[in-house]
């Protein structure tokens, strides 16, 4: 007998332990994104898998970083509005409104009621745009392709409305500091109402197709649960926060742009799972429809800009060409930008994805000294490492879809 073949009990224990380690096998690291059908943009997830179960997840953001905050320091306030289109490009017009409101807060400027109502309609249309896409791709992530097509068809109609209103389908750039670029075109409000009439049956149809679908319920109920405490501590906002049972909606809690004039409910979830996030968005779509209806009904007459803000809002072209004072005003505004006072201001509004905030530091003049954007998607994504731990690969798209983020805003 050779020495090697004699095995002690200690060896056996040691080798069993080794064997057990081998049994567990390797873990696989896989990159989901930045180019992957489920990541809705260029999110990259470094995921470690044990079979089909996620053991670790590290989101990598920044593939769409364009330096918007730095760009803002090199241009006037109005020139930055087109850049805000490219933040949450799913509902661009809401970013315009939020940014204008932030700058107006700096200037302590009030806009007339008509302008506020137009802005509310724009905001809610943007919410519809965003939620319709969010619900559609959420359905697609669970495998229901048809819902996506239905919602996308409706979104396309919003684009046509935007084209009528702003001249651009996608990059709206509609607001200005102190007002909106132009009044609503004739007949536009009627078209908005007609669109809403057509949207309601589609929402019902989506409801029938997915909300009570057994497979969909099995996939989403109890999946990706975010507790109330987690939602608050990770800084989640918007529908994701409300789905976790926190009734925070700035439209109601800290009304801006005349939201206090409209009646609407703030839906909240009870469990904070993917299914609740779906239900909250579905209900918000219905609430948005109702808000737009009210806004169109109560649309006040008047100007669509504050005509006392002579150093901020560009006067109408007809006056520029006929009156000396307006000509000078126009010249000054175009060359030096809207003159906002010195100071610091933080303003956030209830964007479709959550709270979009602008922190503006101004040293006076037409250019911000520093501009910081608080993007809801970035904060909402921060919970991913915690949320994705222990779920299956198939749950990743569902959870991502339910969080409804957009990378243009996350990476800025």
């Amino acid at each position, binding site marked *: 007998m050779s020495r090697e073949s004699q095995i002690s009990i200690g060896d056996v224990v040691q080798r069993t332990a080794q064997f057990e380690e081998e049994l567990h096998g390797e873990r*696989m690291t896989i990159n989901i994104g930045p180019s992957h059908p489920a990541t809705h943009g260029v999110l990259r997830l470094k995921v470690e898998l044990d079979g089909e179960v996620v053991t670790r997840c590290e989101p990598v953001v920044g593939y769409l970083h364009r330096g918007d905050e730095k760009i803002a320091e090199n241009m006037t306030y109005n020139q930055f509005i087109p850049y805000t289109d490219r933040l949450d490009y799913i509902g661009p017009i809401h970013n315009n409104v939020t940014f204008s409101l932030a700058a107006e807060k700096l200037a302590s400027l009030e806009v007339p009621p008509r302008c506020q109502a137009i802005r509310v309609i724009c905001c809610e249309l943007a919410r519809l745009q965003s939620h319709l896409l969010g619900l559609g791709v959420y359905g697609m992530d669970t*495998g229901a392709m048809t819902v996506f097509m239905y919602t996308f068809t409706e979104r396309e109609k919003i684009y046509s409305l935007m084209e009528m209103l702003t001249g651009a389908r996608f990059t709206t750039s509609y607001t200005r500091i102190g007002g909106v670029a132009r009044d609503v075109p004739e007949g536009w409000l009627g078209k908005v109402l007609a669109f809403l009439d057509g949207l309601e049956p589609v929402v019902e149809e989506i409801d029938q197709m997915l909300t009570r679908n057994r497979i969909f319920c099995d996939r989403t109920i109890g999946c990706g649960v975010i507790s109330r405490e987690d939602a608050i501590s990770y800084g989640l906002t918007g529908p994701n926060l409300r789905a976790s049972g926190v009734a925070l909606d700035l439209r109601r809690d800290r009304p801006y742009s005349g939201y206090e004039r409209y009646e609407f409910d703030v839906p909240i979830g009870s469990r904070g799972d993917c299914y609740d996030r779906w239900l909250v968005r579905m209900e918000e779509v219905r609430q948005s429809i109702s808000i737009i209806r009210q806004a169109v009904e109560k649309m006040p007459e008047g100007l669509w800009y504050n005509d006392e803000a002579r150093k901020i809002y560009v006067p109408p072209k007809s006056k520029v060409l006929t009156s000396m004072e307006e000509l000078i005003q126009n010249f000054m505004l175009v060359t030096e930008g809207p003159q906002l006072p010195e100071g610091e201001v933080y303003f956030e509004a209830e964007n479709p994805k959550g709270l979009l905030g602008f922190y503006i530091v101004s040293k006076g003049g037409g250019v911000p000294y520093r501009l910081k954007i608080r993007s809801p998607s970035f904060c909402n994504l921060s919970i991913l490492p915690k949320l994705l731990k222990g779920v299956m690969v198939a749950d990743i798209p569902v959870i991502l879809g339910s969080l409804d983020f957009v990378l243009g805003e996350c990476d800025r």
Partner: protein
Amino acid sequence: MDPGQLIIFLLKAVAVVLAVMTLAGYTVLAERKVAGWIQGRTGPNRTALPILGAIPVVGTFLRRLGVFQPLADVGKFLFKEEPFPGHVNKLYYLLAPALAFIPAMTTVTVLPFGQHDGAPLVLANLDIGILFILAVSSLGVYGIILGGWASNSKYPFLGGVRSSAQMISYELALGLSILPVFLWTGGTLNLHAVVQEQTHVWFLFVQPLSALIFLVALFAETNRMPFDMPEAETELVAGYNTEYGAFGFGLFFLAEYTHIIIGSGVFTVLFLGGWNLWLPFPEGIFGAVLSVLVFLAKVLCLVFFFIWVRWTLPRFRYDQIMNLGWRILLPLALANLIFYAIAIAVIDRVL
């Protein structure tokens, strides 16, 4: 067998294979058209052949229908450059699509698709027809596993693993669900005998539960929505065929649709009475053609059902599929088998 007979037999085989392949190609078109219909869009309507497409009314109609689209697709698959990722094992990589495709086409041989003066129209009227189909069609999974494995890439690998688990789970339910049918027919495994047994009543009405279990298992076996785990495009990009392009992908694609057609064919034979329509067929070639058409119509209805389900339902999760297969379908199929075994014994005693 003399040479003449052999040649005729070969020609028949080629004709059937060509017919099935064409059918598969047009099933792809049907999928796109029906998807368009369900989703409120038009689907493919641009492709036109130079001369046929230029005929005033008919050509436009055919173009709008997308009839030429499969030809263009096949042309594209054939003439595209075959990309070879640098990290694959070439032999296995090339073998996989063929392995997926061959079993799909082989099952066609024993599937009766019509009658001619009472004799079945079938390439090989095997006495163990259904066993042959079960055995050969389950080989198709090896193509998928091998494709996932040979690609030497992570997403295809996950797709291949899922596919193997799914196939194994549902094979059992599939096999058990059709046993009552063969108990009813008195133990013969010949598919033609099954069809003859259904001259008056389809097995769908005699054994609805068997039909349901078989249909669900069939969805799983053909990797169709809501069981399309191996592909699951929002999770695994394209699953097992992520690394394939050109004709390799085309073969996988064709195999998938051939599986659907064959699956529908088997379902038609087992539960929808094959070509039976409660009426005797006229004698001669006219009756033969009529029976084939009836059979095809039933198969196409089922194919439509497959497509309809795909564009309506969301996808299961992997573990939910396993649950459904092992905890629900398998016990159900067993209970179904026992019930019919007892029922048939009792009926035999009484009558």
